[in-house]
């Protein structure tokens, strides 16, 4: 980090003792970024901004919310009706959760397509997977807080999964609940954890950025930066590109907030939680549906392991398998642009995830059962069989000599697609 001389004496004084301005200059302005990033690279900064929006709206909502089974539902409605712009805060927060997952899922698919998890970015990717896990826990507990029917029954179904653990399962469930049913202690601790986890998320995002700025951004060609001719400074180029992306994203996000605020929600959650009445279909929020489908796909025991436990293992494995991705994929080429077979299989995988989501939204009966099983089998086969196998059988196309050569069209062996962006 070069010691930059600051004109303003106060900034210079502070910076000499605590180099925050030098760090900002280094990481937000000068940060050398590949010149060929496409719009799929916007989603990382968008995810960060959504996190900030969620924390900001969440803190204010917490000032008006009452975490008690007798008052939670009414206190949310009080926010909607009597708190100034309370409806706006709540709808921003509620739809913000869906937006967070949309943005993060796109961000992850982008990483998957362009091989952003490969050396030297393995840790960067793994921190990202941990961030996803933390997000899922936060979102799940947040959904319980309004204490509607789906909140209550969703909490009951998901916490009950832990009862599948042999020997200690039931004890763990009682410990999670803080009693013998989902009740006030459960709601209280979920509220406390829902408030805590986003700050841990924030710290994880910081680590994610430190790792990113150490190994630097990947790019659509997936080749290493060879020199200064391949990069441009983050500011103004990517600052303005991210700002434009943010504008477009806000139009999408706020269209739901203002004109279809309950689009992603379940009507049942506007009925106050009733432990005596089970809703006809208990479904999680849309962003959990693929995992819910995997959970329910295992309908058979294997040897002495019961189906329920296998389902729980499969569901957690579906996320945890991502941690091993850098070593499951042995191909030396990062970007799918130069991997003719992987490129096809990638889109099959995207379709498979969407299919799992659709299956997760339907009751587990009829054709949905074998469909869910086939989709689950493909999900794991993609990571555990296809990825390792492709590394050996696929013949990648020739890589361009450098980013700048590809961008200016003077490189060798570039596909037309590579130049287009």
């Amino acid at each position, binding site marked *: 980090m070069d010691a930059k001389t600051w004109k303003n004496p106060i900034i210079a004084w502070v910076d000499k003792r605590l180099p925050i301005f030098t760090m900002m200059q280094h990481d937000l302005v000068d940060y050398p970024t590949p010149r060929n990033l496409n719009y799929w690279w916007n989603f990382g900064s968008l995810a960060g901004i959504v996190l900030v929006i969620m924390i900001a709206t969440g803190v204010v909502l917490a000032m008006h919310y009452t975490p008690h089974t007798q008052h939670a539902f009414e206190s949310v409605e009080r926010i*909607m009706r009597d708190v100034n712009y309370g409806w706006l805060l709540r709808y921003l927060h509620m739809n913000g959760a869906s937006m967070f997952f949309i943005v993060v899922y796109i961000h992850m698919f982008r990483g998957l397509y362009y091989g952003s998890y490969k050396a030297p970015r393995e840790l960067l990717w793994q921190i990202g997977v941990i961030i996803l896990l933390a997000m899922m826990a936060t979102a799940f507990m947040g959904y319980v807080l309004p204490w509607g029917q789906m909140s209550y029954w969703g909490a009951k179904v998901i916490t009950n999964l832990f009862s599948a653990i042999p020997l200690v399962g039931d004890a763990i469930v009682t410990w999670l609940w803080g009693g013998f049913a989902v009740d006030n202690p459960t709601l209280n601790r979920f509220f406390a954890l829902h408030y805590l986890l986003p700050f841990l998320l924030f710290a994880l995002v910081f680590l994610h950025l430190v790792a990113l700025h150490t190994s630097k951004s990947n790019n659509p060609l997936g080749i290493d930066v060879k020199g200064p001719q391949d990069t441009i400074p983050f500011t103004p180029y990517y600052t303005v590109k991210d700002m*434009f992306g943010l504008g477009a994203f806000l139009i999408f996000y706020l269209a739901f907030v203002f004109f279809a605020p309950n689009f992603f929600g379940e009507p049942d959650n506007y009925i106050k939680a009733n432990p005596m009445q089970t809703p006809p279909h208990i479904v999680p929020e849309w962003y959990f549906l693929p995992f819910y489908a995997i959970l329910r796909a295992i309908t058979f025991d294997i040897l002495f392991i019961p189906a329920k436990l296998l389902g729980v293992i499969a569901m957690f494995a579906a996320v945890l398998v991502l941690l091993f991705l850098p070593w499951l994929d042995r191909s030396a080429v990062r970007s799918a642009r130069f991997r003719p077979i992987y490129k096809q299989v990638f889109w099959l995988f995207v379709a498979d995830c969407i299919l799992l989501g659709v299956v997760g939204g339907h009751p587990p009966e009829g054709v949905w059962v074998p469909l869910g099983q086939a989709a689950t089998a493909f999900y794991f086969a993609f990571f555990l069989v296809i990825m390792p196998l492709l590394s050996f059988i696929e013949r990648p196309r020739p890589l361009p000599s450098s980013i700048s050569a590809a961008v200016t069209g003077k490189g060798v062996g570039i596909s037309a697609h590579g130049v287009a962006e």
Partner: protein
Amino acid sequence: MKRKTLAAAFATLLFTTGAAVASEAPKLPAQSWSFSGTFGTFGRPDLQRGFQVYKQICSSCHAAHLLAYRNLTDIGFTPQQVTDFAADFEVEDGPNDEGEMFTRKAVAADRFVKPFPNEAAARAANNGAYPPDLSLMTKARVGGPDYVYALLTGYKEEPPAGFALMEGMHYNEYFPGHQVAMAPPLSEGGVDYADGTTATVEQMAKDVVTFLSWAAEPEMEVRKRLGVKVMIFLVALTALLFALKRKIWSDVH
């Protein structure tokens, strides 16, 4: 091309998950509501007629405990009218300085007084059925206002041949399972509209659903008005940012 496919597939995912729950009930006839769409608003005369239906018919069994009498000024009643509505009800208050609970007339700041003190009392008076709270009804059912309208107008005097209707139940085309404990609440001329509108079943159903939609989403008009302004601002801002991006990047491409 692939981006379009992805977007389409994604939209399918979102759409199907929402629709998944609705699959069993018969298809609801779509009504045209003045409050649907980006610029939709509630008609004040409709809301006031709907309130009259709620007050004279629904509220004898159904609570709407999230509403306060003061909220009624939002649908065009004067503060004096609101005070008068409230004064028809008694609420328990206290304790007073002697430590006694007492009843007093409801005031504008009170929530709508419930017809029954608790669920057990409500069930006892309704053959064991519990009339649900109506404050959020149009948000709490798949199909929303269309469903409530279909339910109110979907009664059949005779169930289809072979349908075993239980004692004290009523056949309704749109209620899940078709057996509903609530007797047909609306009948021709059921209320005497203050504004002279003819009180047909359809008219009353439409009015009361409009009122209940307002009760469930009292912020809707403000929300949509603000939304339009925010959208105009964001589209202009994003267009400017796009122009700025093009300008700044002109020396890179």
